[in-house]
């Protein structure tokens, strides 16, 4: 009788084989489980120069198609002596799951602070980078779902950028894009920072083509690259927009710049 009612009969002859409803879930698994992760969108970007590094990120915070906030920074000064971080020398950007990102930031910040109190000097970027990797790897089986980038100046005063995956694998790089629009920005950076696929005109054919010689970019050039990269990302990715936050790390400290991005 049930098959004539409006309601589909579970396991009954109502459906073709292809769209039959799933029988009850296998033993032990539940239909609805708590998922501790979400993706809060956004994008980050870091470029190292000869004597500076620029860390940048948009300020939009999303969940699904909703914009939760138009001003939620994901680039943070780390390891200053006080809460206002006025004397910080290292900058961390996090993108992915915002709550994990924030927790990660706070842990690294307090570790850097402890280091400062104990040793009477700020942590080097190199040491901080290794420590961050350890923190991430320690949570290997319940990871911080965050793509971190760490920026600062190395012992020689050169710009340093370290990029991470969520479980602590890391690498020092010239530049790196992270987050939602990473796949849009990274190829642009390859071309514009590392001059990939740029050749000296008329230098030959095929493999004989000579690559354009790399040279360090000036701060001004990098700032323009960052702005262009984000303007492009905003145009093509819905989770990126609202505001652009830039931290410029030089031997004089960290300068913060906030610029508008499209809000659509």
């Amino acid at each position, binding site marked *: 009788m049930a098959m004539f009612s409006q309601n589909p009969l579970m396991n009954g002859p109502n459906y073709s084989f292809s769209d039959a409803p799933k029988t009850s879930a296998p033993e032990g698994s539940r239909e609805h489980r*708590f998922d501790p992760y*979400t993706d809060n969108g956004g994008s980050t970007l870091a470029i190292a120069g000869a004597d500076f590094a620029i860390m940048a990120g948009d300020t939009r915070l999303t969940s699904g198609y*909703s914009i939760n906030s138009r001003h939620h920074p994901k680039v943070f000064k780390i390891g200053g002596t006080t809460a206002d971080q006025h004397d910080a020398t290292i900058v961390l950007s996090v993108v992915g799951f915002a709550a994990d990102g924030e927790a990660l930031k706070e842990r690294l910040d307090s570790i850097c602070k402890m280091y400062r109190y104990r040793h009477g000097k700020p942590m080097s970027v190199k040491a901080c980078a290794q420590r961050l990797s350890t923190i991430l790897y320690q949570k290997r089986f*319940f990871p911080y779902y965050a793509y971190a980038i760490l920026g600062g100046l190395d012992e020689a005063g050169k710009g340093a950028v370290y990029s991470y995956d969520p479980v602590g694998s890391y690498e020092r790089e010239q530049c790196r894009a992270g987050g939602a629009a990473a796949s849009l920005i990274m190829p642009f950076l390859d071309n514009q920072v590392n001059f990939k696929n740029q050749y000296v005109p008329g230098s030959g054919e095929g493999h004989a083509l000579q690559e354009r010689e790399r040279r360090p970019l000036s701060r001004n050039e990098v700032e323009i690259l960052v702005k262009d990269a984000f303007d492009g990302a905003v145009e093509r990715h819905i989770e990126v927009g609202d505001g652009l936050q830039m931290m410029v790390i030089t031997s004089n400290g960290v300068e913060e710049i906030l610029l508008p991005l499209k809000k659509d």
Partner: protein
Amino acid sequence: MDHRPQAWGRPRDDVYGAYDYSYLQSGGPKQMTQSPVVTGTSVIGIKFKDGVILAADNLASYGSLARFTDVKRLRVFLGTSVVGFGGDVSDMQYLDRHLNELAIDESYEGGGAQEEHGEKGKLNAANLHTYLHKLMYRRRNDFDPLWNQVLVAGLDAAGKPHLSSVDLRGTAFTSPSLATGFGAALAQPIMRKYAATEEDAARLTRDQAVKVVQDCMKVLYYRDARSLDKYSIAVVTKDGVELKEDEQLEKQSWAFAEQIRGYGTQTV
């Protein structure tokens, strides 16, 4: 008489067959909240010139059943902040009791008349938000989440309006206007027309902001099937909290319903 207590209150084996004792097993992994049960829908909030307004309707739903119709989802903390709860009502009650305890701990210090110490209420809304953020994030790390999204309204340490949100995963953020649940889709666009930026919000008067919130509550009642036309509204300023818990939506017009096509009984 069967003298084994395990057999009491169970169907008789000779009539109904052997009882399935697997239901009684107490071993196995600890069960924690896997989904909300009795729920409240949207909470909305907007900043204005000298404070913040929070509103939520008075309904607690059990699935699609409108189960409790006089539920107070806005809770005052220390007389200076308000927390608005969306999501599971039992978790809300737990949080409310927890915050109550926190408030009593606060009253031990200072022991009243705080104006003498030049600091009115030591835990402000920004502090409260940080606390709730850490609490909710901790619970998600334990895989035992408090199934809520809450809005915190009040003033920060500088005496500026503060409005912020935390959800069951510990995601925390602030904005000139905020809405949970359906409100994020239905009310937030309306509120952003009036308070797109902090500067816009700082120009809104109290009356304007109340009007915006009332309009939003009406839209939510029109379109959110798990909503009610009775609601609570709280205005938080430096003078404290004005909480009205028995407001009624006024001047509803369902004329627009006739214009809706595409489902229902219309043939054209």
